[in-house]
Structure formats: structure tokens, C-alpha cells
């Protein structure tokens, strides 16, 4: 189902309601992620950020409302169409979710082997590049259980960017990283956006990176169970009319 939308609008949420059974997590979410945005999903712990992400990547159907990708409503599409849309996604989960019985190289290589015609030797090179991009060069033959938590996070990012996806979904990518790695990650995300035109949707609490790279956002509230602000996080910090949002973005110092 193609909707009439602005070609610049990459992802549009329309009246989205998220629920587990009868338990409504968030209701009436309306926001637009434009092409090339670095879109931040913010809110207190447990307000439903990961849940929102699960609805956007097609893991869970919304209780009501729609998610449009380039004007196509995901949940009203045929399975083949859904598959096509999903091929454009790269995702890293909050807990990493690396395949524990595969080495890091095999984790990154799996989507490359399945979805491209690259020769095995080329795949090895692409894998090395992706791991180097997240600062894990030389860890190809390690199993996920043999590296640290932060390294697992970064390896999961390498897997997410394996296919140069159109849209990247990150759930707290910098949680557990040192400030330098975290900064390098910000640089990588900016570079993916600037050079490859990737749209990025990211859950994060890291205020430094929210202001450094985010240019659009949505703020989910736990009390009212809906979004209470959206837009450029820097503007929200200084100009939001909602004291809760301003407090959040000023680390409670207001």
C-alpha cells in the first residue's frame, strides 16, 4: 500500500500504539524520520524504547496504527514485500545478540554470504573491514563468549552494518563503552550517514552523543504513556516547554 508522502520521509509512524497483550506501553505515537536523519529515541528506563524499536524492525505488530517505510505500510504488506523492506535494515540489539556458536568473523559473514554473490575471499576482506571499523581488527577468530561486553556490543554493530543497510537500528550501542570508543562510535555513525546516506534510528541515554550526532528525536514518557516531545534534541534541551524533557536533557540539573 503506497501512501502519498514526501519522498524525503523515510520512516513514518502513524497513530502507533504499542502493547503486550492488554498492557499498553505507548499510545498514539506520530513521528517522521527523514532520509539521512540520526533519529534518537529517548525516555526513562522501561518507558518502551526497545519495544518501539521492535515494532519498527518488524518483530512485533502494533496494537494499532502504522509504520511506513518510504510510504509503504509494513504491516499491511505481503510477506514478500516485508522481506524486501527488512533487507534494507541493519539492527543491533540491546544485549548484543551475537550468535554464540559462531566466531565474530562468521557472525558478520553470515548475512554477506546469504544475501550477496561475493566470493568467500572477498567476504573475508569485507568482514575484516567491518570489524576494523568498530575497532575489533584481529578478533576475527574469537567467539562471543571470549570477548568483553563492550566488545560484544561493537561486534554486533559490525554485523548490523555488514550489508551497508539503508536504515540502521541501534539499541543503546554505546552502553558499556569507554568514552574514547564511544566517541569513535559517534564518528562512525556520522560517517555512515554522511558518506553512505544511511538513516539511523538509535535508542540512547548518552547525552554527549545525543547532542553530538542526533538531529531529530522523539521523547517517550512513562507516566502518560505517549510521546511528549519530538525534534532536534539540542532545541528540546533549551526550548522545550515540558519541564520533564528539559530535566532529562540537562541531567536533572534544572
Amino acid at each position, binding site marked *: 500500500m503506497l501512501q502519498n508522502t514526501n519522498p524525503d520521509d523515510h520512516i513514518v509512524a502513524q497513530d502507533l500504539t504499542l502493547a503486550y497483550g492488554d498492557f499498553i506501553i505507548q499510545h498514539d505515537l506520530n513521528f517522521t524520520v527523514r532520509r539521512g536523519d540520526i533519529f534518537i529515541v529517548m525516555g526513562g528506563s522501561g518507558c518502551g524504547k526497545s519495544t518501539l524499536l521492535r515494532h519498527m524492525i518488524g518483530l512485533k505488530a502494533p496494537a494499532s496504527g502504522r509504520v511506513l517505510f518510504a510510504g509503504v505500510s509494513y504491516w499491511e504488506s505481503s510477506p514478500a514485500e516485508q522481506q524486501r523492506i527488512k533487507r534494507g535494515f541493519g539492527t543491533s540489539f540491546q544485549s548484543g545478540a551475537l550468535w554464540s556458536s559462531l566466531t565474530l568473523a562468521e557472525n558478520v559473514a553470515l548475512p554477506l554470504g546469504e544475501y550477496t554473490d561475493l566470493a568467500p575471499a572477498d567476504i573475508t576482506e569485507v568482514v575484516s573491514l567491518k570489524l576494523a*571499523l568498530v575497532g575489533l581488527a584481529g*578478533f576475527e*577468530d574469537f567467539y562471543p*563468549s571470549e570477548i568483553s561486553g563492550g566488545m560484544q556490543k561493537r561486534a554486533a554493530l559490525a554485523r548490523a552494518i555488514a*550489508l*551497508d543497510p539503508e536504515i540502521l537500528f541501534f539499541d543503546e550501542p554505546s552502553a558499556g563503552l569507554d568514552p574514547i570508543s564511544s566517541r569513535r562510535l559517534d564518528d562512525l555513525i556520522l560517517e555512515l550517514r554522511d558518506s553512505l546516506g544511511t538513516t539511523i534510528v538509535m535508542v540512547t541515554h548518552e547525552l554527549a552523543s545525543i547532542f553530538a550526532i542526533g538531529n531529530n528525536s522523539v521523547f517517550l514518557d512513562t507516566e502518560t504513556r505517549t510521546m511528549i516531545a519530538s525534534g532536534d534534541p539540542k532545541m528540546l534541551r533549551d526550548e522545550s516547554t515540558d519541564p520533564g524533557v528539559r530535566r532529562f536533557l540537562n541531567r536533572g540539573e534544572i
Partner: protein
Amino acid sequence: MSGQLNLQFPGPDNLHVVIAGSWLLTDSHPSAGDIAQQLQSRSDIRRISFDSTDLTQWDSGLLTFLARVYQLAGKHNIDIDPGGLPDGARRMINLAMAVPPHEDTGKHGEKLPLIEHIGEKALAMWRAAPEMLHFLGEVTLSFGRLFRGTAQFRRSDLMLIIEDVGPHALPIVSLISFLIGLIVAYMGAVQLAQFGAQIYIANLVSLGMTREMGALMTGIIMAGRTGAAYAAQLGTMQVNEEIDAFRTMGFNPIDFLVLPRMLALVLVMPLLVLYAGIVGITAGMFVAVTIFDISTFEYYQQTVRSMAWTHIWVGVIKGTVYGMLIAFAGCLRGMQCGRSAQAVGEATTSAVVTSILFIVIAASLLTILFQQLGI
């Protein structure tokens, strides 16, 4: 238009790499092999420069190529002049080079020669023995604490586990015991009928089911059902570091996890064995009455006459021992589990195999023991 590569030599020591067209991951484009060859044959090259004015689009395809060129240049000690590259590509390559590679390659490297491999396996098996004894010791200590009343575990856990291994196992135990009773009765009866001695079906079935088959079949069912479940539960907890969490908070994981599981199976097995015996005898009666024209009352009389309390005790003791061994093997493999999904699978498989091995050994030893004691 797919990617094109053109190598030029504007100066004696300069390799000029002209990149044109579309360099996407999914397109075909030249590899860095040509450059490797040139660097190999012309050792006077000291500098690599680029021209990307005709590059139309690029992604990781180009970056992979560039990473390879940088790597080659590093190997031959050649300078790279990245001026002619797209800005984004240059910055991305810098990001990729920012962290030097971790030097510990070959850790999962070469395969061991066959003899060494066999040696390793044998040593690993040898090392497993003390580990098993260690675990046995820990479990024994834990039972000691249980009897002194200082073992730390949640009584509600015990109840849940008992429910899971006992009542929930009844359907499958009924099914298999009924089948075994049916088979023993039928096979036996066909032979006995040749002498007109069908009535002895009752002896055959009641003795067989109470003394041997009831315990053995229940043991094998529980090995597949409960031993595997124990190993998978504890193994998954090992993967999630839940067991480490118990340790650091001062809970003894043996008391907390292994003890209730062993206790549950040891308490439930005797009851299941008795139940299996009853179901088996009923199946035998069914065969005798429907096919071999023996009246229900006759069969009952003959069964009662052939039974002795010792047979029942022997079966129950065997079953209890099997239960202990199954719980031991399941918990042992679960606690030894590694930290991957694969390891959980291996632990589960190994738990079932070990349990059945234990059951076979115990069955043989107990049979000899009871024989010697004349029971």
C-alpha cells in the same frame, strides 16, 4: 556501469590509482590483486596516489578495496597520498585504521595432527574423572547440609520441580509401561500357550514389570525427559552468568540448584516405578483376558500369588538409584556447560548419554548384587 580500475605511473616511484564507475558491494569490481602484483614487481615504487573524479557511487565495496591497498602499502613500506579519494572514504578508512589490529591470530588456528588429537581427547577424558568426583563430593556435602538443616534453597522451587518431574511425566510413563506390559504379555503368552500354561503370563508380567522393566523403562524415560531438562536449565543459567550471580551473592549454587533437583527425582522415582508396574500389570491382564481367555479373577489371583514384597523392593531400589544417577548426570553436565548455545546443546546430549550409560552400569551391578545376596 560497474567499477573500473586503471593503474598509471606518472613518475618513477609513483603509482597512480584511477578509480571510476560504481564501486558497490553488490557490483563486480576489480580486486586489489593487480596492485599487489605491481608492488611485487616494481620495488622502486614509494608512493601511491589516487584519482576518483569519475567515481559515481561507492560503499563498502570501495572501502574493502582501499583497506587492502593500505594494507599492501604498509607491508611494502610505501606512503599513501589519500588526497584523491572521496572525503568520506578517507575518513572511514582512518576510522578503520584507528585501532591497531589485535595481535593474537592463530588462536583457533591450525588443526592438530590425528595422533595429537586422539591424545588430547584421551587426556580430556582423563581430566573429566576428577571433575566428576569433585562434583560428587560437592553434592554429598550439600546433602550433608540438607540433613543438618543448613542447606539454602527455596522449598517452593522443590515443589515446582517435583510437580514437573512427577505428575507431568505420568502420561509418557503410562504410555510406555502399557506398551511394555502388552509386549511382554503377548510374547510370553504365545510361547506359554504351546504348553497350555497361559496362566503363567501373570507371573511373567508381574515379576518382569516390578523387578526390572518398570524401573528400567522409567529410568530411560526420565533420562530423556528430566536429565535433559536439568542440563538445559543449568546450562542456560551458566550461559547467562546466573550461576556466577548466585556465587557472588553467597548462595551455594549446588544447594540452590542441584540439591532440589536431585531430591525431587529421588523422591519421585520410587512412586513412578510403582506406578509403571501397576500400569504394566494392567496391560498384561488386558492381553490375557481379551486374547488368551483367562478370567480377570484368575489373573488377579495368579498375580497376587506370584508377587512378593522383595520383588517390589528390588524394583523400587533400582528405580531410586537410577533417579539419583540421572539427576546427577543432568546437573553435572549443566554445571559444566560452556558459554554458548552450542554448549547447551552439547550439555543436554551428554546428559542423556551419560545417564543411560550410568543406568546400564548400575543395572548390571545391582542385578549381580541381588543375585549374590539371593534376593
